[in-house]
């Protein structure tokens, strides 16, 4: 192998500690994808513009192609694989993307999902999100397939689902949440 100095980094990803041995220059995106084989995080540009590689670092969206894996130690990383509940129930934004046809090829999708999931936390269930606010949330992510129309809709739909799940309306959502 190479003579490059290797670092053992303990990454906390989706609630699980996972050690990786990487050179200092290894991008977080590559460590997630190729060392941990969490390939849900995609790489569309590797220069920080498209947002496909977005993961949450302590709940905040960051571009994993602009970070080194070694910098992620001591932080909690959430990838698209970690958005659903432990029991497999989809995150509201995942459900909303399916409901609204918010994806076509799906390559940009993980970056949108993580970005929106983080943004939703700024809105309490029950609060509405306007289309303008939705566009603001999506403003830094590129999609070449959908023309964004249905992604904007999916933001509103995701908030609706959160609201239902919080029991503010919709009996079924309350039932499911209480179990």
């Amino acid at each position, binding site marked *: 192998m190479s003579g490059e100095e290797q670092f053992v980094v303990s990454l906390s990803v989706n609630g699980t500690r996972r050690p990786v041995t990487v050179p200092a220059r290894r991008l977080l995106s590559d460590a997630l994808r190729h060392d941990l084989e969490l390939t849900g995080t995609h790489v569309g540009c590797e*220069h920080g513009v498209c947002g496909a590689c977005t993961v949450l670092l302590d709940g905040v969206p960051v571009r994993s192609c602009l970070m080194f894996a070694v910098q992620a130690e001591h932080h909690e990383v959430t990838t698209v694989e970690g958005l659903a509940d432990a029991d497999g129930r989809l995150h509201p934004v995942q459900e909303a993307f399916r409901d609204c046809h918010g994806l076509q090829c799906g390559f940009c999708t993980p970056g949108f999902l993580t970005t929106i999931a983080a943004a939703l936390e700024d809105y309490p269930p029950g609060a509405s999100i306007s289309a303008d606010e939705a566009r603001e949330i999506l403003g830094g992510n590129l999609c070449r397939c959908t023309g964004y129309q249905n992604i904007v809709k999916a933001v509103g739909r995701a908030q609706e689902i959160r609201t239902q799940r919080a029991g503010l309306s919709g009996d079924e959502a309350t039932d499911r949440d209480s179990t």
Partner: protein
Amino acid sequence: MTTKLFGEPIARREDARLIVGKGRYLDDIGHGALGVAFVRSPHANARILDIDVSAAVEVAGVHAIYSYEDLDGAMAQPLPVLIPHPSLTAPRTGYPLANGSVSHVGEPIVMVVADDRYLAEDAAERIVVDYEFRTPVVGVEAAERADSAVHEDIPDNVAARLVQEFGDVDAALLQAPHTVSFTQTIERSASMPLEGKGVHARWDAVDESLRVYTSTQTSTSVRAAIATKLDLSLDRVEVIAPDVGGGFGVKIVHPWPEELLIPWAAIRLGREVKWAEDRREHFVSSAHERGQLQRITAGYDDEGRLLALDAHILHDHGAYTPYGIVVPIITSTQLLGPYRLANYRCQVDSVYTNTVIVTPYRGAGRPQGCFAMERTMDRVADDLGLDRAAVREINLIRADEFPWDNHLIFQDGRPLIYDSGDYPSMLDKLRDLVGWEGFEARRSAAAADGRWLGIGMALYVEGTGVGPYEGGHVQVLPSGKVLVSTGLTSQGQGHETAFAQIVAEELGVPIEDIEVHTGDTRRFAYAVGTFASRAAVMSGNAVALAARAVREKALRIAAEVLEVDAADLDIVDGVVGVRGDPGAVLPLSSVAVLSNPLRYAFDEASRAATQFARFASDDQPPVADDDEPGLEGRDYYSPVRSTFASGAHAVIVEVDPGTCAVTIEKYAVVHDCGRLINPRIVEGQIHGGVAQGVGGALYEVMAYDETGQLQNASFMDFLMPYVSEVPQRIDIGHQETPSPLNPLGIKGAGEAGVIPGSAAIAAALEDALGIRITSMPLGPSQIYDLIRAAQDGTAEMTLNSARRSQEEST
């Protein structure tokens, strides 16, 4: 009744895996594979004098370094000219690795294989190539002047001179009461899928077989190309398109050098090898499209009837012609649009430049053709002082005139005959949808407030579903699961959903029981590919035909078992039953068991098919002469010619007089793609197409400098629309004129949304500014320049703007 599925806007089935990060795209495969990096030419036109790899071999982790000298057999030959054509008189293609010279920045010269991509790049950086520079040819006008040549043995830079003609254009122009001549240009853009290209190859030395994954729009043809170039028997090669992160045309080109080099290296090294293109590589070594210069002369009468059209088009073909002249053919045929025309001539000179190759990008020459015709319509209206919609209307082919023969040959080598449509009603719907009639009052009221509004429209006809064929295979397993496969590939169009809808309805099975596979040569070896809005038409009909065969066989077997006439049987929710008799039923799973006469039972269900259990006639063989075991069917759909979809877009724009920023206030689409399989998917295709149309009209350029350097080869500088650049709403009106050419009556929808974007937006901007628009795209700085030129009196104003100011002053 089985729930009706054809035509329903059901949610997509592929989403389940894609929204949880379980998609499997090219670079998600083969974590242990060796990585690859290429040394690509930094020069647009040069001879290679020397390649020095000595510093690179020192890099730890490097396994191999290859240049042209290492290539053997057919690999050392030029890449294929995929689509030969009699007018393509001087075709040129590159080599997998440059053979002594390079013709564009980005051309691959050296391939490095290392433990991973990082190390491969380290080594590639240390390779020194010596060049002798030649003068690069950039832009079609430089190519036409031919002061220097892209390829030394083609001094005029002309790859092809294509002439499409009917009637007598010269005579008709002489006799026409009015004529107009103008020149306009349209910039380059590119497919630019979010996922670049990529190839993974694994050689099984024991089995002597090769498995290749590639992010392609045609796995069957890549397979044939690899077998040919690597001198392998076709049955030793399998090619699979995994989940593909968008294609839009660039991935139909094949074999890309990397699609040959990666498997070639995998065999030589006996290791898994993978290459995933990075974004810069995609900009400088994948394909672009669109760039054309159009010189147009039109003749017309007092009412705006088009009498003759003469177009001379310079088409920028880039450095090579691997995909033939498909784009020029489409431009020159689809230019005609929905209009009647008696005299037409279009000459396309397809010229070489020292830039990235030009091959189809969604729309594939149609946006340029539409730009030519629709801007001609706007010129005619402006010249005569007529309403732009009215001029279009008077020229439209009427609904009772189909089939309409254009007397040209289309891109499939077949006559350009429109099969069906209703263009006048489409135009009416568009006028209503966008508010065409009341707009002039709105425009002048806004103008009085210092706001610049404009409206424009553009119509198109799109040949879709080109042949030669696609196939489908449908198999009911004894478990009741229904496997559907077709050879063409998917890049996000929702084929798993649409084809399942078709089979569910044809066969009468719950959609949940259906599993669709595409683009995998192990499952279906005969296919053409996904391009030209053909997947739904071609494979949709093929799987429908295969499902019908399965249905017929199921009914035949069930009729024997139930001892009834097959004509009395129906399949509902996966169960064969006698109409009107709820008692007599046989699940398809049981039919599947019985369809395969067995000697050996291996579970309870299969006992029913064994020799001593199965009903059988003593004088018939268990499998009849004209029958086969298994409940499956395979069929092919091969159309006599393409089916023609159509559409009309209208757009209202507002230009900010201070910043020159353009806002799209309204975007209206009327669209006719025959019968809809899934309206939600079709609308998604339109949304995406419109966004690409807007990108091409307002933002996207390939900024080559005079030395052939692409100066904006990143997402920072190549401005693809974000959500902030696309219309906030797209109003869509569907019109369904079924195609008489295929069993399902469908037409393609994939490219439609992008075609009229530049034409409609150019018209709207011209309306808003009153300044003649002759080149697209138009960003704020170009608009600013136009406004300044208008103030200086150096810009050409529309006649309509003069009429307006006259009206205002009286």
